[in-house]
């Protein structure tokens, strides 16, 4: 107890703590995504995968609540300090939490599948989108943690490509001769990929966008 009291002058500050936690959220959701893709596309059977994914997702949700709690504590104690940062974090933390949810939803697609995905068929519809999203995860993390504006702008390019590809895939699936099960699973995958890319870009572009324009990067100055 006394040791802790003596440590009064030390300790990480609010922003360092919150940004560390946010980075952990991004790392955790990337881990869920990687594990799910291995199962979905490479058919790698990992023991207790479902439990593992749900456990990591719970941790992501806990981190989200923890960040929100820290923000409220901070604004209660210092209402005029870091207000923009707090509002921004309140917004992007929701995006990070959604990353966990959509990655988890991708896992649910693997449970719907009646037979393992044929990689060639998948590539025909999706190309290398799974890898592009993984790259987007990395770029988003770097752009946000390092506050790198050029990397943030790059993510928008990726997102745009993924979004259009996914939209086209759904159109193609509607005309395809795939079985109902495969077509539904692919359509869901396309939907989840698109949402993942969107949320990742929301996080990355928060580096450049004014607070009022968060989440509207496609209607904003990046286009200009």
């Amino acid at each position, binding site marked *: *107890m006394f040791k*802790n*009291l003596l*440590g*009064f*002058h*030390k*300790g*990480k*500050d*609010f*922003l*360092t703590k919150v*940004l560390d936690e946010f980075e952990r959220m991004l790392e955790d959701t990337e881990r869920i995504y990687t594990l799910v893709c291995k199962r979905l596309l490479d058919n790698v059977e990992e023991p207790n995968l479902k439990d593992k994914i749900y456990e990591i997702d719970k941790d992501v949700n806990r981190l989200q609540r923890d960040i929100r*709690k820290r923000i*409220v*504590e*901070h*604004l*209660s*104690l*210092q209402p*005029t*300090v*870091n*207000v*923009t*940062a707090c509002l*921004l974090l309140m917004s992007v933390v929701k995006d990070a939490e959604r990353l966990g949810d959509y990655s988890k939803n991708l896992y649910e697609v693997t449970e719907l599948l009646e037979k393992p995905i044929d990689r060639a068929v998948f590539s025909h519809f999706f190309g290398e989108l799974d890898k592009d999203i993984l790259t987007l995860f990395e770029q988003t993390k770097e752009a*946000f*943690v*390092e*506050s790198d504006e050029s990397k943030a702008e790059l993510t928008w390019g990726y997102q745009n490509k993924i979004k259009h590809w996914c939209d086209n895939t759904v159109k193609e699936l509607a005309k395809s001769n795939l079985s109902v099960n495969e077509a539904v699973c692919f359509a869901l995958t396309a939907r989840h990929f698109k949402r993942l890319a969107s949320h990742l870009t929301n996080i990355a572009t928060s*580096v450049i966008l004014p607070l009022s324009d968060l989440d509207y990067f496609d209607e904003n100055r990046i286009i200009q």
Partner: protein
Amino acid sequence: MAEERFITRSPLKNGIGSGLKIFLVAVLLYSFLVSIGLMSEAFKGLGKDFAENLIRTTSNPFVGLFIGILATSIVQSSSTITSIIVGMVGSEVIVNGSTMSLLTVSNAVPIIMGANIGTTVTNTIVSFGHFTRREEFKRAISGATVHDFFNFICVCIMFPLEMVTRAVFGKGLLEWLATLMSKLFTNIGGIKFTSPIKLATKPAIDIIKSLFVQFFNTSKNTTDVVMLIIAMIILFFSLFFLVKVMKALVIQRIENMLDEFIGRNALWGILGGMMFTFIIQSSSVTTSLLVPMIAAGILTVEAAFPIVIGANIGTTGTAILASFATGNRLAIIIAFVHFLFNLTGAVFIYPIRVFREIPLKLAHKLGDLAFRKRRYALLYVFSLFFIVPLLLILVSKFFA
């Protein structure tokens, strides 16, 4: 790094570095101590009539109690009121050839108790910031009024006990204990204790006093009245800014340690509340900072309760400092009465579950009531802190 992009600071933080803030704290603390000494000198000059009138007014303990509530509710700072009381007790005047305090310790005890109730009005007013959101307001008002009810219960127990022991033994329990404690700081074994604070402030007080005498060379009474007013203004502003600067100086560190104090155990909460309040010299700031967290639902009333009790103890540091500025034994006694009163609450009332649950239940009940009809919360504040004390003072005066 991302942290750098995010950091936006308050105007105070931008403008003033830590070194300058520490210097400001030293200046403000010195001004505060000088104001107490100056006030003490001015009270002495007000003389016999003023002293007799004051003693007569405060001789009714109930009136004293309500004066304490009303004065603190108006000023919204128990530190200011207790410091003024300490200054009054520390001012000796000559009545009928013998030296006596402007305000006796016995008469000051109920005022100190009243100040403890009055100080709780600030965080209750802060809770009204959540008035428009019903559920949030319910939590906020419960969180704020747990302090009110706890202090109220402490007074309900300690006030009669003090009166009964005074009637039986000639000295109230708290007064007797505080007298014992004060002996540590006064004449021990024939060696006269000289307060280093008094020594440090005396030259400044003497200079200011001589300036006043030169300026108002016509009437001594006018000099003393003006000096008293100026001393009170200095006291008020030095405490006000001292709290602000100290808060700016330590708030970051407090925030970094917040998790250590919230939700661990009651002892940690008490220690945290006590430490923070002692540093910033204001229990109102500590308890008011808790209200938005309780309103947001990230801190329960139960978890905030020990912090509030710690704040009660921490705030007594200001009066103790003020008493050392007067260097008067009676002033030290009344400052210790303040300390012991709040310590008693923490040591003897909080640990007993039955007692501990009373303020919590009452606070939750008031929260429920305010949830249904928010005007009850307004009625509660106005009646408890302003109307009832004022009416009772007037009634007592009328019957006297």
